[in-house]
Structure formats: structure tokens, C-alpha cells
């Protein structure tokens, strides 16, 4: 009996009251897919507006709301929770040989928080005083003075933060307590190391955005004045508190993505990962160093030169553990037997796009250059390379990799390749153009644009259509496969971590018997049939 089979009275109720980590992972996937497409639609509308330099299609006020809600949805509802909530939930317990997480009911509560937060955020689009227009960063003083639904939106983010915290807490405890006999720390798959490092960031820094958002609400209602210079407050303190969370948050976004890619590459190179310990500990290093670079978002805000110097230096340093991973993935491919399955193609694309994003990050981490690039389309290009080209593509890679296991169906690879081509082309037309435009001076979050940027906008918007078309093919293909795909075997890709030893889809209890682990996770037997 698989976890998908009818349980009890069946139906939606049995799903939304289930504490089975696999069902919860699927629940996250379903809700997140809807939210992702909502976020994509907002992006498409923004791009349409820029087909014309001046007033067109939407008002300036609406445009402000568009980029705000696009950011809120994509960041808080897709990129941050994405890999941990879907694949961490579904696969981490299986990868360590457990039957579920440490606190299954808390896991369900995390999902309820997620759905509630998402609902509140969507409500803020329509209710009362209009969708928030501050940007997803909610900087004071505007976030305190604007009449739009800021309180509702930040409260939504607060509730979403609770979901993240509880998930992180659950995962840390699970990894410490529920590993199968013989699974030492150095025998854990690297996706688990990634989830573990991420969970610590989730637990330690999310509360800080929580309290920061509460303060915004308090300021809106009571005008306490803690960020108001006329009362002695300092708006820069808001920025500090905001970025103390929001910078490490990007590592919540990227580390699990790196973890997923680290699972995929060995499987399709039929070779053990190069440098297991380097990858494991670099995840920890990224979490640690990533927590002390936040003020690189504030170089032009008025922080001291000393702070600028230190944070810039640390920003360069934090790139090193990421680079170590890139070297190790590449070295894994060397002399491997490479099969370019769709999941592998997306995973390797991740490495490329993430590298571009990471390198642009180094460039803008230099103080002098930052003055020129801050708040331009360069920044927008940078973070889309890392968050979308990075986490997004890794999410799709993970989905393509683990789909047969999760749903017991194979998908047609040809549309997946077509989707990739559309997406890769569209992505780079869109976001590389942004890098160029930004370096030329196009400011972000601007409704109108000057004539010299018009060609760039046209190219970017065309790219966005290709990208969206590719996404439609990708998702459409998988949805068709859910119904019509041929049944998947236990191990369609020849993987050797624990999830490939159990049926597709897995039984509710995961394992008939908890395995005893005697080797590391990536020992490939060259004679084993794929």
C-alpha cells in the first residue's frame, strides 16, 4: 500500500489532516505550484508594462503593488520554503532511513501556517486599502506611512516565518535522533547535510524578521517612533534588522538547492561525489559566514565606512565555500559516465546559472562598484540568476529527478528537453539583458523608463515570454504524466541512495524494515544495471 492510496475515508480531508511527511511534502508542492504561477503572472504583467516607456497597461500605483507582491510571493512562498518543504519533507526522512520526522503533527502545523500565511498575503492584494506598494523589503518610513495593506502583508510574512521555523526545528531534531543504525554523520547523503545547515538558519534568524515585521505593524498602529528620526529613532536600524534575516534567507534558498544538485550529479555521472566532506562542511560554512554579510545590502544607505569595509570583505569570503562546491561538482563529472537525463540537464544548468549569479554578486560586493549598481537592474539580474537560475532550476531538477519516486509515474523526457531549451533561452534573454541595462543605469522598481533602455526592455520582455512558455511545457508535461505516465519502477535512474531501494511511490511506512547502513552514500557499483 503506497502513501498515495486512500486512507480512512479518503478524499481531501484525509490529505489535509495527514501527518505523513510524504503527503505533507506533496501538499506543499500543490499549494506552492499555484503560488508560483501567481508570482509568475505578476512578473509577466510587469514585463508587459515595459513594452511602452511611459504609461501603459497598468497604473504606476499598480506597478508598485506588482513588484511588491511578486517579491513577497516568490520569496516567502516559493524560493525560501521550496526545496526544504517539498523535497526535504518528502525525502530527508527516507534518506536517513527513518519512517517520518521527529514531530509529525508539528509538521502538519507548519503546512497550516504556510497556507494561512499565503492566504493572508493573497488577501492583501484585494482587501481594503489596496495591495502593498513598498517593495518586498518594506523599508521604513514609507512602509509606515503608506495607506496600503502593509500590516496584512507583513503579518502574512510573519505567519509564513512560523512555518519555516517549525520546519527547521523539526528537521534538526529528526536528523539528530532518527538516523538509521549505522548511518553516521559522514554516511548521510549530502542533501541531508544541506537540509541540516539550512534548518539552523531557519531556526536562528527567522525570528528576527518576525519581530521586525511586528515592529512595522506596531509603528503603523501606534507610531511608537523607534524608526522615526524626529522621535529619536533610526531608519537604518530597520534595515539592519531586516537584512540580518533576509540575507541568511538567501542561503536558506540556495543551500538545499545545492544539496539536491549534489544528489543528482553523482547519479547521472555514475560516480561518487568528489570531495564529500568538502561539500558537507561547506554547507555549514555558508550558513555561518552567510550570517555576517547582511550589510552589503546597505552600502549606500549611510552605514559607516568601517562597516562597509568589513562587510565587503566578508562578502568576498562567503563566496569561497560556494565555489568549492562548484569545483567539486565539476570534478565529479570528470571521467564520469554521463547521462544527460532532463534532471541532469537542469542540474548542470543550475551550476552555470548559479555561477553567473554568484560572480555578479562578487562584483557588486565591491564598495565602489556598488555605488553605481545598487538599486539598478543589475541587482535584479543578479538575484534572479541566483534565486531563479539557481534555486528555481534546482527545484525543477529535483522535481524531474524525484517525480517518478513521488508519484510512481514516468514522464516523457522530450517535452522536458523542449522546456529546458525555451527556459534557458528565455531566462538569459531576460536576465542577462537586465545585467546590461543595470550597468547602464536603469533603476529598479521604476514604472517608466528612459528611451535609451527601451531596446533592452523589449528584449527582456520577449525573453520572459519564452521563459513562461518553457515553464508551461515543463509543468504541463508533468501533469500529463501524473495521469498517463507509465508506471515507474523503484529505481529508474540507477541511483544508490536509500529512496531508490523502496517502491515508487513509497509505502506509508517508507521501509518494511529499517535498513542498517554500512557504507557511505555514493558507492557506485559499475556493474549494477541502471
Amino acid at each position, binding site marked *: 500500500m503506497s502513501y498515495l492510496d486512500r486512507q480512512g475515508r479518503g478524499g481531501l480531508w484525509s490529505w489535509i489532516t495527514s501527518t505523513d511527511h510524504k503527503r505533507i511534502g506533496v501538499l506543499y508542492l500543490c499549494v506552492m505550484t499555484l503560488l508560483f504561477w501567481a508570482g509568475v503572472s505578476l512578473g509577466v504583467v510587469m514585463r508587459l508594462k515595459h513594452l511602452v516607456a511611459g504609461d501603459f497597461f497598468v497604473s504606476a500605483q499598480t506597478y508598485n503593488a506588482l513588484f511588491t507582491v511578486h517579491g513577497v510571493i516568490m520569496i516567502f512562498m516559493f524560493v525560501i520554503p521550496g526545496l526544504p518543504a517539498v523535497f526535504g519533507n518528502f525525502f530527508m526522512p527516507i534518506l536517513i532511513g527513518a519512517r517520518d520526522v521527529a514531530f509529525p503533527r508539528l509538521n502538519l502545523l507548519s503546512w497550516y501556517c504556510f497556507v494561512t500565511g499565503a492566504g493572508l498575503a493573497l488577501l492583501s492584494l484585494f482587501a481594503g486599502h489596496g495591495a502593498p506598494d513598498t517593495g518586498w523589503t518594506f523599508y521604513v518610513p514609507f512602509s509606515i506611512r503608506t495607506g496600503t495593506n502593509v500590516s496584512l502583508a507583513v503579518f502574512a510574512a510573519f505567519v509564513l516565518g512560523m512555518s519555516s521555523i517549525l520546519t527547521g526545528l523539526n528537521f534538526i531534531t529528526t536528523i539528530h535522533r532518527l538516523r538509521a543504525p549505522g548511518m553516521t554523520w559522514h554516511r548521510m547523503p549530502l542533501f541531508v547535510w544541506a537540509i541540516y545547515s539550512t534548518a*539552523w538558519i531557519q531556526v536562528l534568524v527567522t525570528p*528576527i524578521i518576525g519581530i521586525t515585521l511586528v515592529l512595522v505593524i506596531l509603528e503603523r498602529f501606534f507610531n511608537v517612533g523607534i524608526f522615526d528620526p524626529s522621535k529619536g529613532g533610526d531608519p*537604518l536600524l530597520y534595515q*539592519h534588522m531586516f537584512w540580518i534575516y533576509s540575507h541568511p534567507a538567501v542561503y536558506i534558498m540556495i543551500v538545499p538547492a545545492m544539496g539536491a544538485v549534489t544528489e543528482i550529479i553523482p547519479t547521472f555521472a555514475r560516480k561518487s561525489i568528489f570531495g564529500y566532506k568538502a561539500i558537507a562542511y561547506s554547507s555549514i560554512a555558508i550558513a555561518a559566514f552567510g550570517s*555576517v554579510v547582511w550589510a552589503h545590502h546597505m552600502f549606500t544607505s*549611510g552605514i*559607516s565606512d*568601517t*562597516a562597509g569595509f*568589513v562587510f565587503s570583505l566578508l562578502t568576498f569570503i562567503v563566496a569561497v565555500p560556494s565555489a568549492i562546491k562548484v569545483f567539486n561538482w565539476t570534478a565529479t563529472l570528470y571521467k564520469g559516465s554521463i547521462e544527460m537525463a532532463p534532471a541532469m540537464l537542469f542540474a548542470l544548468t543550475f551550476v552555470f546559472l548559479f555561477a553567473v549569479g554568484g560572480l555578479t554578486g562578487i562584483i557588486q560586493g565591491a564598495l565602489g562598484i556598488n555605488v553605481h549598481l545598487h538599486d539598478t537592474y543589475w541587482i535584479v539580474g543578479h538575484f534572479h540568476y541566483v534565486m531563479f537560475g539557481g534555486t528555481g532550476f534546482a527545484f525543477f531538477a529535483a522535481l524531474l529527478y524525484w517525480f517518478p519516486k513521488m508519484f510512481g509515474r514516468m514522464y516523457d523526457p522530450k517535452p522536458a528537453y523542449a522546456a529546458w531549451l525555451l527556459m534557458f533561452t528565455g531566462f538569459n534573454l531576460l536576465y542577462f539583458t537586465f545585467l546590461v541595462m543595470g550597468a547602464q543605469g536603469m533603476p529598479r522598481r521604476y514604472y517608466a523608463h528612459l528611451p535609451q533602455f527601451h531596446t533592452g526592455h523589449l528584449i527582456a520582455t520577449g525573453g520572459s515570454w519564452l521563459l513562461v512558455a518553457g515553464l508551461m511545457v515543463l509543468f504541463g508535461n508533468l501533469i500529463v504524466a501524473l495521469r498517463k505516465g507509465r508506471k515507474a519502477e523503484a529505481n529508474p535512474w540507477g541511483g544508490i541512495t536509500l529512496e531508490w531501494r523502496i517502491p515508487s511511490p513509497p509505502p506509508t511506512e517508507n521501509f518494511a524494515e529499517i535498513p542498517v547502513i554500512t557504507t557511505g552514500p555514493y558507492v557506485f557499483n559499475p556493474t549494477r544495471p541502471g
Partner: protein
Amino acid sequence: MMGQEQGHIIPYRTLLTVWAALLALTGLLVIASRLSLGAAVWTMLTLTPVKAGLVFYFFMHLKYERPLLKLMVFVALSTLVTFIGMLFLDISFRP
């Protein structure tokens, strides 16, 4: 795994001693705050963490816990201290 380490019991005497120490330290803090700003700040920076440490170590049983848990607490506290410390790279050096 059940029941094995629910074992360690902190004696009432230990708890009472810690409680008395906490009250005494609080008294010291109050006195120092009346003396001078320097004394107040200095005692606050030293005695307050000591008080917190006593609560962590004894009331919260941390002294008798496994090294793993102690490490976790250390990581959490260090994170907070680091944030405050690095904030001062900005605040203290503004022109």
C-alpha cells in the same frame, strides 16, 4: 531510548543555593547602579550574564546535559552576540 536519561535529579539544596546567589547578584547590581555610571555598566556587563548562566546551568539543567546540547546553546547565543557586535561596526564608526 525511553526513560534512560530522565534520571538526573537536581537536589533542592542546589536549587536553593542558586536562587540565593541570584538574589544576591541582583542586589549587587542594584547597589552598583546607584554608585556611578561606570560601575553600573561594568557590573551589568559581567553580573547579568553570570545570572543568566546560573539559570541556564542549574535551573535549566544545562550543566548535566550532553555536550551536543551545550554546543547548540553556545551556537545560538554566539549568533545573537555576533549580530549585536557587528551592528556596532556601523553604529560606533559613523562620522
